[in-house]
């Protein structure tokens, strides 16, 4: 053999071993990356044009989600509120220089964009946080009216200064709940109460609600893909 293979070839053995390790490492990295939350945009937290604080409004001031997202129980989209909604509290001075409504922070720089929008009629361009692929059709009303709380998908928004994505919103995530909805159900009047926790076993509570609302979540492809 030594005639054929010079001594240095012995080192090839080590090299081969190293190669194997690298290969293993590579596979590991791929798997890790695939599993990593950010792959599902968990923690995606864009800076909005107006620093609106859900923590303040929903959390401390206890505004109901539906005060702003008022179509959530009537439509597929939980509509982003029109500027008019903001103006209810944050209207600026009108032409005469008087503020028509009870105005909060009507001078605040942070709200400049809102006042501008109200004046010009041009929309405030918010940045979408929870963004599903175009081939997925999620309907808010279908879930909200079935006792699925906002918190199930959006997390404790009422504690977020700046909204971020907290759930994977992956297909597996959806199917988990569609296959076994009970733990995620709550009385309809508690749907927007993010802090609510059942005093008995969520499974039991859920089962009861499922019973009375007669819920049969589907796992057909066409339930979400059209």
């Amino acid at each position, binding site marked *: 053999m030594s005639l054929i293979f010079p001594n240095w070839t012995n080192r090839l053995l080590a090299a081969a071993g190293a190669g194997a390790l690298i290969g293993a490492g590579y596979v590991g990295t791929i798997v890790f990356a695939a599993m990593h939350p950010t792959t599902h945009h968990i923690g995606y937290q*864009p800076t909005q044009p107006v620093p609106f604080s859900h923590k303040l409004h929903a959390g401390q001031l206890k505004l109901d989600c539906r005060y702003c997202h008022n*179509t959530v*129980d*009537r*439509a*597929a*989209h939980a*509509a*982003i*509120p*029109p*500027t*008019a909604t903001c103006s209810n509290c944050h209207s600026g001075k009108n032409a005469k220089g008087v503020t028509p409504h009870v105005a909060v922070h009507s001078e605040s720089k942070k709200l400049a964009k809102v006042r501008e*929008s*109200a004046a*010009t*009629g*041009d*929309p*405030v*361009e*918010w*940045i*979408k946080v929870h*963004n599903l*692929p*175009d*081939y997925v*059709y999620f*309907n808010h*009303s*279908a879930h909200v*009216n*079935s006792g699925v709380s906002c918190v199930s998908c959006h997390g404790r928004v009422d504690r977020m200064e700046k909204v971020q994505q907290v759930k994977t919103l992956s297909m597996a995530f959806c199917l988990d709940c569609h296959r076994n909805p009970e733990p995620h159900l709550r009385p309809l009047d508690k749907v927007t109460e993010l802090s609510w926790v059942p005093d008995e076993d969520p499974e039991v509570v859920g089962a009861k609600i499922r019973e009375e609302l007669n819920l*049969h979540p*589907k796992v*057909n*492809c*066409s*339930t979400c*893909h*059209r």
Partner: protein
Amino acid sequence: MSSKKWYRSLSELENSSEFDEFLHREFPQAAEEFPEGVSRRRWMQLMGASLTLAGAAGCYKEEKLTPLAARPVNRIPGEHQYFNTSVEVAGQPYALRATSNDGRPTKLDGNALHSSSGNGGSNSYIQGSILDLYDPDRLQSPFEKDNGESFLRSWDEVDSAMSALVKQFSADGGAGLGILSEPTTSPTVARLKAALQKKLPKLGWFEYRSTSNSNQLAGAVKAFGQPVRPLFDLTKTKIVATFDCDLLSSGLNAQHYAKTFADRRDPKGEMNRLYSVESEFTTTGTAADHHLSLASSKIGALLLDLEAAIDAGATKPADDASHAEKFFAALADDLKANAGDCVVAVGPGQPADVHAIGFRINSKLGNIGKTMTLVRGDKPVDHADSLKDFAKQAKSGELKAVVILGGNPVYGAPADIDVTSAIKKLEVSAHLTFLPNETTGKCDWMLPMSHILEGWSDTTLADGSYGIGQPLINPLFESRSAIGMLAVLAGESGDLQSLVRTTAGNVSGKLRTEAAWQKAVHNGFADGTAAAAIEPTTAAFEVDAAGDWKAPVEVSNGQIEVLFTSSSTVFDGQFANNGWLQETPHPLTKLTWGNAAVMSPATAKALELVDHQLTKVEVNGGRAVLPVYIQPGQATGTISVALGYGRTQSGIVGGDEKQGVDPVGVDVSSLRTSSSMAFATNATLSPLQSEEKLASTQDHFAIDKTGMEGIHDRIGDLIREGSLDEYNKHPDFAEHRVHHPPLESLWTEVSYEGHAWGMAIDLNKCIGCNGCVTACQSENNVPIVGKDQVQRNREMHWLRVDRYFGGDDPEQPEVFSQPVTCMQCENAPCEQVCPVAATVHSDEGLNDMVYNRCIGTRYCGNNCPYKVRRFNFLNYRKETKQDNLLQQLVLNPEVTVRSRGVMEKCTYCVQRIQNTKITAKAERRAIGDNEVVTACQEACPSDAISFGDLNNPNSDVAKAHADSRSYGMLSELNVKPRTRYLARIRNHHPWLAKADHDHGHGHSHDEELGSLESNGATVASHDSTNSQEASV
């Protein structure tokens, strides 16, 4: 393109090369006309509208959410809104219902509130016209041409120029000034016209459209001494006889007629009987119980004889008599026997005399006041003469300036009227037009016209009611409607709404009140404004139409008759740039993207022509070279050619010299003269040695003998039909047409507890009008593929209408048409072979197609016995230039847009099912018996399609499936189709009953039953029937 980009970067983009590209890509015409004098910034402002629009269509990782600053009342973002509006489409008034998504109209359907739509039915023109709204080739701002160059103008500049024009001519009472308009039923236009004529008494007013209904009115004048138009009441009609008349699918009130006709096609009730005589097979002809192909020029003679025969009384013809004789005798017999319960309808193409005879027969039979009412029509205007006057006056210098409101006279004029040079003669010419076309190029002023959905308008609906057109969206570009333009000329102030409201007030005082107006706008028309019936007395009159129509035709060159028909898809050419319509197959020929010289086999044989061969047609001194299309049932010795093709300046789809886009089809206006607008005789056809491949969606290539036998052998099983007697004897003959052993599934049968969606198509009601095809395209974002791809058999329509010919005599065939779409088989062959489970069954029996899972092995397509699966062989939106940002606004947001390499198909409009389910759930109620309505069903004027939950016995579809006529196509394969057909029943006149045996069925039904009983197969097929019913 991310929307962000388009919003923010207008100023950055202004001088960039990207922007130039963008202009050329999105708005080639406008970009080309880019004005010298104007600053880019000004240009930007003008383009603004379209650019912001462009934004709306964008989608990228970082998506913007742009809520309205103030949300309108009742607007729920992302939810459909419906608005009724009555407008003119393709020269006809329609009551429509528009679907709007976040202020963006995406679909048009019939307005069920008004009778003229049948029951909310529509047609291809209506469905397709929504695409025009977002046509990037639209003229986007006014331009003035000055020695060849065109300069951008603002509307203010235009207005001042126009009023100056009026002032200039008002000195001499408007002499020298002319308006060339398309005929319209709009009362406001009429009012403004009157106002203008009051102001300028000598104003010249001309009207032209290449197809018109004036002959009927002229005929009425002859028959009754006054212009009246008929309204048929087919619910009361037992015998319907049409003469060169496509009563059920084109012309005024067609949807209403289709509906009322179909209502009497249920063999359980009293069935009506339809006779049709025509030279070109129309959809009405296919629906007929008895059909006679006869040259248009001979129909007058036939009617005269018919009148005589009715007076004399018909006698049973000898058994060896020709089809024509038997048909004639039977028709005469039926009409006489059912006097007062029948109608005779004459088509718009027939000369006034023939209409007069028609009216006379109707009044003789006492139909007037019973099955048909007469209402006042406008004074008949011969449009050819009107256009001739225009040309004459222009050439003589009598006419100095003209404003052309819409239309395209340069293209549409008959050969003997030279509009081009006429316009050239004029000092000033302005064209208000939606798309820049052949005429626009010749005019000094090019003025953008608004889309029907872009402003207030009004119209007179079929029954005479006052229809209101409300705006669905602000004009996308700096455009104006004809009303707006006239108002400027007439010096009327006020916006469109006030202009229309004024008219409304005049039409009916009630409409002056806000409440009544609001109601009218909501409904799309004003109640109680329908025209009153009048019963004029018939005047005696002479006609010259006599002739021998029975004589067998000797096809001889020089004696050929050419029939000019407005295209079933692009109409008179106004839809030439509309991809959906270009690709909608002609109901009979199945041709897309072009026209042909359509002739019967005998004619072709005599002229030594073959399919696709080019032939030179010479008539009236004009000539045109067309490819031959051989179709059984075209009257022997006649050819028919469709108008509206061969456009040279329509746009990137329909053909545009400037952009080097070849015209689609052949322009045949050179064959027409003002004296032969509908049909011309004595034509000569000479064969050329070359051929041009036509794009047909069926019989893509000539079928050989083997194939023909194969087809003949199976039509009877695929499209099952029988005579009324047959039905009365064996109501369930259809299910028994095919015998097969007991069907057993390889897999354990699924039982469907909850919903079980299903569809039923009544072949007895379907008239094969194509409305459903275009509706499906609009609802489901079905792409177009273009002529070349259609020739490669790659069309994408989810729903197609198959048509076959039967009978022994190809000159007098019977036609079978059958809408085919995904059958949602319970044992779906496609599902078993998909390796990635991209098509699987839902527990409601839907054959789900998951686009995002599909990798495109196309195995499912192979294994689908109905071949309803469509594959994106290429990126078709790109290939067909439909991927521009403006065009994307027409897409239905409820349906995924499929990518290249993906299989797609009908899913029973699953988006509608889901949304209905969600709504019902939210309202804590069950889904209504027939609450879910598919797009095709919605569009169908004759209610041939029913859809719903088969587990709900009250649903129409469950009843239909239970009907004795119901059968599943190819159900012997045990695929268990969820769509079942109701067999067609032909209601034959006893004298023509023999026809029953020669429509291509294997063997007559009686033998079949015999064989069934004898060989015990009855049991087998009964088993299968039961299992079918049990499973649904």
